[in-house]
């Protein structure tokens, strides 16, 4: 849940601004792999270059989307594949052990009541994201940019700078998630982030964020993560094949989007929507 939620918050920011980033799984792998490859070394140095690698991808995504004007889906599809290739190359197609004692303690250690630090990272990220989006000017600008980019630009909001910053935030989240993943398994391997692709994009959408931008709540995205984690764990506990996870997740996402689509078309509250379905 922690890794899923941290990644989903990064995507949530972009969805609210009307953009998307699908390169986060590769960024997660890159961050984890860079951390493992640069160990053993100074812990601070490992974290720094791991995060710098992640941020670089964010800058590339932001540059090509905002400055060059390529749709973010295509840009991040490109970086998704490209960075995955880089991870294969630098790892030589193998798992690499993390040789550092402090990083696992920082990102996946158990201190308070046996709860992994990753949970505290998740709570911190959710609270911070909630404050930024809900209570700061920048947050209002993110909603404005996603809701009506042209109007927001006319009103003096630096929409391009807002989007550029959000691609970097998304990559920072993926970088943190990468460090948590490598701390959990004490090794990094290519494709280790693949399983997060679907649930991370699904969680904000389940929580009410629109692909067209302008809407979304951090708390609801966190709840979306909770629902998806429950499904994943439920399937495991029931002893069902992992394939059922994908079937359930896919069905829930399509179901949620269908309900939203009807709601939007009708622009009426839930009760009215039920009437519409019965009709």
């Amino acid at each position: 849940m922690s890794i899923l939620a941290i990644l989903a918050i990064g995507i949530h920011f972009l969805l609210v601004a009307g953009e998307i980033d699908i390169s986060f799984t590769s960024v997660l792998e890159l961050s984890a792999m860079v951390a493992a490859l640069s160990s053993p070394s100074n812990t601070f140095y490992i974290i720094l270059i791991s995060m710098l690698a992640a941020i670089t991808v964010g800058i590339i995504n932001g540059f090509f989307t905002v400055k060059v004007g390529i749709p973010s889906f295509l840009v991040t599809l490109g970086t998704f594949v490209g960075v995955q290739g880089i991870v294969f190359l630098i790892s030589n197609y193998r798992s690499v052990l993390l040789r550092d004692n402090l990083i696992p303690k920082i990102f996946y250690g158990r201190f308070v009541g046996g709860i992994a630090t990753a949970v505290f990272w998740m709570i911190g990220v959710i609270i911070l994201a909630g404050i930024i989006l809900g209570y700061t000017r920048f947050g209002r600008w993110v909603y404005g940019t996603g809701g009506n980019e042209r109007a927001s630009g006319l009103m003096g909001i630096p929409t391009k700078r807002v989007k550029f910053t959000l691609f970097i935030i998304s990559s920072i989240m993926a970088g943190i998630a990468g460090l948590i993943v490598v701390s959990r398994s004490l090794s990094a391997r290519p494709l280790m982030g693949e399983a997060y692709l679907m649930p991370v994009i699904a969680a904000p959408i389940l929580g009410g964020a629109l692909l067209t931008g302008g809407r979304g709540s951090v708390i609801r995205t966190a709840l979306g993560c909770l629902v998806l984690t429950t499904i994943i764990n439920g399937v495991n506990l029931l002893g069902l094949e992992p394939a059922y996870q994908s079937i359930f997740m896919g069905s829930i996402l399509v179901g949620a989007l269908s309900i939203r689509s009807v709601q939007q078309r009708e622009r009426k509250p839930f009760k009215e929507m039920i009437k519409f379905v019965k009709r």
Partner: protein
Amino acid sequence: MIRAITLKSGKSFLKKPAAPNVILECRTIVKNFDHIQALKGVSIELRKGEILGIIGDNGAGKSTLIKIIRGAYKPTSGEIYIEGEKKEFNSPRDAIREGIQCVYQESALVEQLSVAENFFIGQEPVKKYANGLVNFVDYKKMRSETKKYLARMGFHLNVREEIRNFSGGERQAVSVMRALYFKPKILLLDEPSTALSEKAKRKLFTLFQKAKKICPMIFVTHALEDAIQICDRLIILKLGEITFESKTRKGLREEELLHYM
């Protein structure tokens, strides 16, 4: 007499005795787009307490001129003076900082945001904490100020409601009052009445007449009738040049102006 003055910073400007009451002056504005000359040395003046109408057909250059004044385009050559001081705008934000607000044909509003949020979009009031290190948006002030200001102008709207739930006239009124709230030096009205019903248009024009005492306005339109109705002075643009400039007077008819367009 015009005198060139060089400042210590190296910047120079031409000092000219400012005409009384002139708030905005555009001097010989030229704008080229590749091989097309959209504006061919247009000069205009906007005076205190007036509504200046800029009329022209599609492609006359009126929108280009407005975009230059509000900082969306940079002129190829020419100068802009506000209250006698030369200004250069690199973005709409620069123009807003200099007191230029604009109301557009499709009201520049964000559908998903509330009336109050739209009212303050881009210029949200903040509460400062920790010696100004942390700034949080002051929603309470946003709502109360919006409600108060709209009510003063005769509009009683639920400021918490999303703007998309209101009529075109109400939305445009919010746009105009938003612009006026920030006490602009100049208000640009870029075809603000095009998409409105006759009733909403009349209400809006009454608002403009009240508001011109607060700040002068430039009213851009291709509707002659509207311009004659509310403007104090008219300028007609044709293919990037001024073909007509005069005060509006009683009995001025559309037919008289049509051949200048």
